[in-house]
């Protein structure tokens, strides 16, 4: 099932529509020192002048998203909504499956500075109306200032309510810019 994952942010109907709306939004970079959530663009190279001055940057993020179903529930759930936390913006997630042994989703998050996209592998379990899932996320690309974004083993978790198909997710980790 994880093999069904497909890249997002590639101009598909749902994501393409979101992208326009997203461009009007700013990612809010909030100093980590003043908030529990950490958000910072930090150089991963030592802070001194020298041969290693070409510093790859790392974006640390910790965001929560609230999403609503687009279209009808079914074999695939297309959800879109907003995310807040260390950054904010809008996000689209496509759940291809969530089972106790495997599952997958792809996502694209948008801001005025660009977008990032990626995929997740998940494990989940159903308790009545709720589907709880956890997994790891990879950032596979982006646009604008995030054009070279990449990262692996980021944390991804959330809940889908099968009464309304509203979803909430939590994403945490860091990726390279």
């Amino acid at each position, binding site marked *: 099932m994880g093999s069904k994952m497909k890249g997002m942010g590639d101009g598909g109907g749902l994501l393409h529509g979101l992208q326009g709306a997203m461009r009007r939004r700013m990612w809010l970079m909030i100093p980590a020192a003043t908030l529990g959530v950490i958000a910072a663009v930090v150089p991963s190279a030592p802070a001194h002048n020298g041969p290693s001055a070409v510093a790859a940057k790392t974006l640390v993020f910790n965001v929560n998203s609230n999403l609503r179903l687009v279209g009808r529930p*079914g074999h695939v759930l297309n959800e879109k909504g907003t995310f807040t936390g260390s950054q904010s913006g809008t996000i689209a997630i496509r759940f291809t499956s969530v*089972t106790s042994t495997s599952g997958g989703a792809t996502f694209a998050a948008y801001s005025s500075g660009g977008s990032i996209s990626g995929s997740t592998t998940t494990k989940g*379990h159903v308790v009545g*109306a709720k589907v709880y899932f956890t997994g790891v996320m990879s950032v596979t690309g982006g646009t604008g200032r995030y054009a070279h974004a990449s990262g692996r083993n980021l944390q991804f978790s959330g809940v889908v309510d099968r009464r309304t198909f509203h979803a909430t997710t939590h994403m945490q980790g860091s990726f390279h810019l």
Partner: protein
Amino acid sequence: MRCRWTLAALLLATMALGWPATAGATQTVKLSAGFSPYRLGKSTTLKLGLEIGVAGTSDGLPSPVTRFEMHIPANLELIGSSLGLSICHPTALLANGSEGCPTDARLGFGSAQIKVPVGPEPVTELASIEAEMGPPVGEEIGVLLYAEAGSPVAAQLIFPGVLFGGASQSLSTSVPLIPSLPGAPDISMVSMKLSLGPEGLTYFKTVHGRTVGYHPEGVALPGRCPRGGFRFAADLAFADGTTASASSTVPCPASVRH
């Protein structure tokens, strides 16, 4: 010694009453599966049927089923459905039947034909079955099959099951032995039909202060038919220690057949 005597007495009693001798007989199983409606990418109701017999005879009494495991195609998942939104607790189910459970815990229903060994010819009895969303079993989905029969043997039973997800998705259910008459063999199931999905189910929700009935979304079929169709299989274990298996394939719709 006492145990040996009891067994001998039971054997004699059984022979005297003329119950079919099925000890050591080979059980046969036939599985049927289907979707209603059958439209790729759409919500459906899954229809399953089991027929259990004895090899070489048309009316033999099979050994009682003690466990069955129904293998379901992995791409039929509950997440996209709104079936089983509430949890039914076994104690409430046993105390009050299916009325003891929230209506939106119901996953489906069906029936089972059982044979009660009384007299030279076993009596056939029909039991109703209701499938309810049970408490989770670890990280898996708990399913309760509630069977109710009236006459000649009145019984209310719960068969606790687990719906295992993933690539080898299956519904695994333990079936308790059902005693018939004192000293007589246990009741045997000879067929079962189970419908899992919105067909025939009504859930209720409150909209602007009013209670409104609706049909839940069933499990969605994938947009593409898997190569070779949707494959189902059943593995059964019997009280005499034997096992039997069967499989069934729902072919792809004619327009997309591989």
